[in-house]
């Protein structure tokens, strides 16, 4: 892979050039959280790596969007023109979440709504150091080899820039003079030091390879009931999880002309109605059943289908769940056979 260097003070100039090429997106502050958003003023962009409230999936699978418009005769595919977008600041774990989505939405039938947005988006990944709730080294999603157009590693006074695709190369060509092709031995040493520092900073380690067996063995364990007693069925875990892709579809009738909008919106298997069929029978009436499905799908089924869990170690479930049901507390319970309330991160540390 081609590597270049970009001086820190040149980042703004580069991104400004980029923003003329298409819509610039990236993390910005909103209230107390960071969100991925369209950046109109480059001053609003957070240049350092952050964990946003909602993951990058919202750019490719918006929380709610129109699929079709029925005009009384035919279903017209939503022809909303997708702008060319360039997203800056996507951490490596979230690049992996997109690689997972590429498989899910590309398997057997290609989901045009996802892939259109994917094709229209150029991604500038940004390496990061682990935060307290991160465990991407355990899920092996702390490094990326594909799924980005450019990737930047923040070293002392420059970024090491990896050119992943020809689309990424196009961005470099917008202002080739900003980049230095001469990566020295000194730079390489700096990169190796940075990598070691990152690898040593993880608080959490989970052996995900052993988890599918433990999920099987613990299928009837009382831990699920214990978690279920706490679970609020709020679905927040699904909303913030970068690899939750479930959706529901609803038709909305326009009262003025009787036309119909068919819309697709995020759903969660934590909601009671999720598995209810016509006639009222519910295949997962009990909360414990729904929790089991969520964790089976992430930690067991996906491993069977794709050889690795669909958890990317971003820690959003740890930050978000109001009652501390998350990958860490569930894995701990699977390992010990009991729900250890003291081992969970405290509110304060979030």
């Amino acid at each position, binding site marked *: 892979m081609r590597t270049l260097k970009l001086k820190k003070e040149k980042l703004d100039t580069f991104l400004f050039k980029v923003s003329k090429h298409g819509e610039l997106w990236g993390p910005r502050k909103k209230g107390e959280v960071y969100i991925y958003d369209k950046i109109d003023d480059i001053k609003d962009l957070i240049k350092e790596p952050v964990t946003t409230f909602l993951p990058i999936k919202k750019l490719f699978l918006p929380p709610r969007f129109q699929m*079709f418009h029925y005009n009384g005769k*035919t*279903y017209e595919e939503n022809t909303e023109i997708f702008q060319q977008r360039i997203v800056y600041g996507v951490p490596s774990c979230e690049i992996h979440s997109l690689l997972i989505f590429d498989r899910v939405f590309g398997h057997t039938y290609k*989901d045009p709504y996802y892939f*259109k947005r994917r094709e229209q988006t150029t991604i500038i990944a940004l390496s990061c150091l682990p935060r307290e709730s991160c465990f991407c080294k355990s899920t092996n999603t702390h490094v990326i080899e594909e799924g980005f157009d450019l990737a930047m590693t923040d070293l002392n006074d420059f970024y090491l820039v990896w050119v992943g695709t020809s689309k990424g190369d196009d961005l470099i060509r917008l202002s080739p003079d900003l980049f230095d092709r001469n990566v020295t031995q000194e730079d390489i040493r700096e990169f190796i030091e940075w990598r070691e520092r990152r690898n040593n900073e993880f608080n959490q380690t989970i052996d995900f390879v052993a988890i599918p067996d433990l999920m099987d063995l613990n299928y009837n364990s009382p831990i699920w009931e214990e978690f279920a007693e706490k679970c609020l069925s709020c679905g927040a875990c699904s909303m913030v999880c970068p690899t939750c892709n479930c959706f529901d*579809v609803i*038709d909305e009738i326009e009262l003025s002309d009787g036309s119909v909008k068919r819309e697709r919106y995020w759903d969660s298997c934590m909601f009671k109605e999720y598995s209810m*069929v016509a006639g009222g029978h519910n*295949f997962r009436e009990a909360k414990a059943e729904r929790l089991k499905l969520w964790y089976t799908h992430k930690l067991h089924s996906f491993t*069977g289908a794709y050889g690795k869990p669909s958890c990317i170690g971003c820690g959003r479930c740890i930050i978000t769940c109001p009652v501390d049901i998350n990958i860490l507390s569930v894995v701990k319970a699977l390992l010990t056979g009991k729900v250890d309330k003291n081992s969970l991160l405290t509110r304060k540390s979030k």
Partner: protein
Amino acid sequence: MSNPFSPEPARIVRKYKLTKDVKFFQIRFIDKERALSFEYRPGQFMMFSIPGTGEAPFSISSTPSRPGLLEFCIRKTGRLTEALFRLKENDEIGIRGPYGNGFPIIKMNGYHLFIIMGGLGAAPLRSLLLYTLDNRELFGRLHLLYGAKRPKDMLFKTEFFEFIEREDIECLLTVDKDDTGKWPCYKGFVNSLFQRIEDIKPDNTYACVCGPPVMYESVLNELVKLNIPKHQILMTLERRMKCGIGKCGHCAIEDIYTCIDGPIFTYWDVLHMKELI
């Protein structure tokens, strides 16, 4: 990029009542080419789309050996079926598909087939049944075992009564309760029909079962007693579906999606699913 979520325009050609709450629908793609070239396998399903109401999956009851028309046997149970029942002959609806794995017809060639159905389980299995009769030379013996609550609840009565006289199918029909006093066939649950079955070569037999949950346990018991291998016992599962193409997640059972990995599963597959045991 073609859009697999796009419903295709179709027309309700015929619609009539089978029982109190079950109606029979004949549907045809409006595009003539599409109607005649449309291919599917018995056991597959279609998504119906009614603007303003939404979409829902329905098993195909017709056989691909009789192209042109698609037939469905539908019970009124929810919002979409209520809207569907209100539509009239010649009205348009959207359909997309076919989806699901369907029955492994090729593997079943040469085998003795048991088609065992209860109540509305006739909907997907009628497709296989008619397909087998249209390609009779491809299969071994053919048994149809069908149970309904009462004579008036039995679907496709006229069609199935004709089979009783045919030489190439052994057709056993039963009702739980005969409230007419005139029922000419058997009485009792479907599993009671097994005592009338003789000379089975279990290794050379496929059993296809569809019916209400209460029927499965007793029927599966009988089939296992006959030593039919568990991977040659096929059953269909029903789950909530929003997309039909393995994206929306609703029909997941552990690591499988009912819509693309099913809806036809072997008894052995089902025994593997912890959630179902």
